[in-house]
């Protein structure tokens, strides 16, 4: 079982991100479970969502305690919420930021993880470029596919297109594909 | 007689009681439904209402008029209360029509459900009448009533207003008039009887919902009551008829005075008879011969503390002012009949 925890703020599509991950996994014939942390979902408040992926029925229902991967949609959370709690030693970290880990103040921390498991991607900027709105969730999924290898980029693209029809979907897919490229190169 | 203009009739008939309701002197078409052997008897004899019960009288007239108007394709939904209790004295029922009693506060909602079911089954010919007392309508059922009005559900709601929770022993409701004695507003102390509050006028509230039809009616004018129910059944959507029904037991009036008491309420102006459609008054019944409110109050022990040991001129004046206000608001006096 592969467990992903997504941190962000209300209004950034954190819940949708988990849903899309689960949809992408489903398209690859795998089992997936996605659910939010069910806080008071007002705009701007820290929210967490979870996604589990496995090859058989997922029975576990607890909030993800020991994630295999973290997606951090909002770097302002890095020093206010314990986003890294329980992260496995060889876990993946994907952060939505164009700043370096030094600038983000977490260089020492991420150094403990395999270098190709950690990545930061300017997903908001990519979203602005392709979609015209600062919603980084879809783009980040492309980055996740790249660094984790858990999902094919095409599955992610299909999931996005199914959720967002027409031009909006296509634009989000474009952002995700570019994030995939950026993360693959990093 | 209600509904007929002076030009149609040269002789005016006034009701002096059900026996001389004037039916035998009228054309067939103008007779009450109750006068007909073909009446449905939706509530048949054997029920356990008190002697002189205004509600039993009103309900019989209202329901049989509705049955005629719907050619018998009708379902009645009842709130808990006197009507429900005296028509279904365990283990019998006096209802000869399909009848459902659920709870005290939900008759309007239950009726909505019944109407929806018949509609979805393609039986829109089957009509729904919901009924409750003042307690079940103006108090505990108020929320559901407003919801039914707001959705404009196809239900006629009839409120039988005897101005207190009679079934449970005469406790005050939001329909209890000021100064009236009830078990929870006893005639003791400096301000005996019910308070002079802001009032809760259900017919006006119903009008504020802009529903297709609102009417007040009284057992003092049974032709009028039947006509209003018949008219209501010719329409679709939410309709409301508020009937004043004296309760001899609760009001402390003589059981053979029920219709007289009801008439005094109308003729004093305390209970105006009017109709409204979509929020605007469309007609009102003129007072035939105006009386001061004391004529009405004196007939009922629930007001006797206003007269004994001394006359409470101040409170009586306030009640008179309420009557005066009604007369003005609903234009209840004809030039020729004003006294």
């Amino acid at each position, binding site marked *: 079982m592969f467990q992903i925890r997504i941190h962000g703020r209300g209004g950034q599509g954190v819940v949708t991100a988990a849903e899309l991950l689960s949809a992408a996994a489903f398209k690859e014939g795998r089992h997936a479970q996605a659910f939010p942390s*069910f806080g008071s979902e007002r705009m701007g408040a820290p929210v967490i969502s979870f996604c589990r992926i496995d090859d058989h029925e997922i029975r576990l229902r607890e909030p993800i305690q020991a994630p295999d991967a973290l997606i951090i949609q909002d770097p302002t959370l890095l020093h206010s919420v314990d986003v890294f709690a329980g992260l496995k030693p060889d876990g993946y970290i994907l952060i939505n930021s164009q700043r370096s880990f030094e600038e983000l103040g977490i260089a020492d921390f991420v150094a403990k993880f395999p270098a190709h498991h950690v990545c930061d991607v300017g997903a908001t900027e990519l979203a602005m470029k392709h979609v015209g709105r600062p919603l980084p969730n879809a783009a980040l999924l492309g980055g996740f596919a790249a660094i984790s290898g858990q999902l094919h980029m095409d599955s992610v693209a299909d999931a996005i297109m199914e959720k967002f029809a027409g031009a909006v979907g296509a634009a989000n897919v474009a952002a995700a594909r570019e994030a995939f490229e950026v993360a693959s190169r990093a | 007689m209600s509904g007929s203009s002076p030009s149609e009739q040269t002789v005016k008939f006034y009701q002096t009681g059900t026996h001389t309701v004037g039916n035998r002197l009228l054309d067939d078409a103008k007779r009450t439904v109750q006068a007909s052997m073909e009446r449905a008897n939706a509530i048949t004899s054997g029920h356990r209402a008190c002697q002189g019960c205004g509600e039993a009288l009103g309900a019989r007239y209202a329901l049989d008029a509705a049955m005629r108007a719907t050619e018998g*394709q009708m379902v009645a939904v009842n709130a808990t209360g006197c009507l429900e209790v005296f028509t279904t004295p365990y283990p019998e029922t006096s209802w000869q029509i399909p009848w459902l009693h659920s709870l005290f506060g939900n008759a309007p909602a239950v009726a909505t*459900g019944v109407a929806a079911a018949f509609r979805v089954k393609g039986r829109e010919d089957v009509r729904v009448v919901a009924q409750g007392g003042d307690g079940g309508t103006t108090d505990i059922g108020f929320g559901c009533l407003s919801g039914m009005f707001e959705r404009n559900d196809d239900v006629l709601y009839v409120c039988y207003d005897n101005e207190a929770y009679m079934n449970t022993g005469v406790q005050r409701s939001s329909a209890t008039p000021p100064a009236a004695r009830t078990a929870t507003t006893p005639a003791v102390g400096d301000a005996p009887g019910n308070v002079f509050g802001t009032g809760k006028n259900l017919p006006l509230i119903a009008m504020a919902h802009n529903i297709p039809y609102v009417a007040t009616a009284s057992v003092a004018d049974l032709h009028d009551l039947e006509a209003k129910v018949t008219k209501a059944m010719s329409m679709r959507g939410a309709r409301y008829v508020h009937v004043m029904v004296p309760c001899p037991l609760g009001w402390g009036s003589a059981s053979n005075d029920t219709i007289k008491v009801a008439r005094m309420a109308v003729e004093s102006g305390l209970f105006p008879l009017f109709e409204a459609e979509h929020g605007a008054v469309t007609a009102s019944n003129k007072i035939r011969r105006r009386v001061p409110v004391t004529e009405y109050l004196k007939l009922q022990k629930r007001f006797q503390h206003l007269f004994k040991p001394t006359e409470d001129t101040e409170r009586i004046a306030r009640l008179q002012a309420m009557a005066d206000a009604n007369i003005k608001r609903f234009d209840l006096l004809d030039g020729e009949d004003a006294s």
Partner: protein
Amino acid sequence: MLKQVEGSQAVAEAVGFCRPEVVCAYPITPQTHIVEGVGALVKAGTLENCEYINVESEFAALSVAIGASAAGARTYTATASQGLLFMAEAVYNAAGLGLPIVMTIGNRAIGAPINIWNDHTDSMAMKDAGWIQLFAETNQEAVDLHIQAFRLAEELSCPVMVCIDGFILTHAYERIDVPTQAEVDAFLPPYEPRQQLDPAEPYSIGAMVGPEAFTEVRYLGHEKQLQALELIPEIAQVFKDVFGRETGGLVHPYALDGAETVIVALGSINGTIKEVVDAMREDGASVGSLSICSFRPFPLAAVAEALSGAKRVVVVEKSLAPGLGGVVASNVRMALARQAVPVQTVIAGLGGRPITMASLRSTFEAAAADNLEDVHFLDLDTEAVSQELARARETRKSGPTAENILRRLGTGT
């Protein structure tokens, strides 16, 4: 058809396939997505011949359902928590009148203090109203139980509550095999009422029943629930024949062969429990679990049989009888009246507190070592409660308990 879909949406689709004729909707977290989903089906014309009514309160919702059901329509509504209590009078009324209404409960805690998250207090508050209560373990089961519920309700003329854990199931995206209209039609015949408001055949429904007959009427309600004990497994079998999977039924045993310690629970927590059971068994522990699907009627015989080999039983429940202990545990004890098996109560997940594998495992291990107090509150912050008790002892005007606990949580003091 396999879909990756939110639990609520799948339930809405399933309800739609059952061809309800009247649906009443009043919003309350966490069931709202369900009624919204059904509403969308009606508005889009996908669900035909259905009157969808937006009502002004939960009390109105069930009242409208009562009227519709009494007039012969297949009727559905959903609620949770405070809403279920607000319609409590109507809940008893519907059961007493024998109306086969199906209602989803998106299980949620009841205030005060106000809490939107999952536990079973709401369903437990209505457990003796005469409704059948079925608890879903997964969203697949949630979907399937709704379809079974309509058939069960209508055969018995008894209302049925399908209970699904709020948020944990309602808001979770899972892989669900959503049935087709044809499959549901093959399983669920049109509703044939035992009683119906009908001008062609008028009778009075809801008259008073006095002391001479009330007991008999109540007894017949009890009988109906006992009949359900037979019917529920039968319907589950027919369901399996039509849909090809095993869901519903009275209980779901797991790894009970030779299990000395058996964990008993309702609803979604059973998934996590199974993970713990597997992990413990791998380490040599003798443990198994039993999920109770039909809570009302309570399957005394099936539970007794399933637990016949156990040396100890641990009931993990999301409900509390203040001053007594467990609600489910009390019912389980009744099943074991003839067996001398200790039953321990673990109160867990109240107000949505996450139930972790780690906490469960240490609790089960303590139980297996006979080292668990009866009525154990999982993950209780004993310091917080001690502090509050001390404060209350020291001063009369100690303030609202909830506020004090929250202040401690928020400020760390």
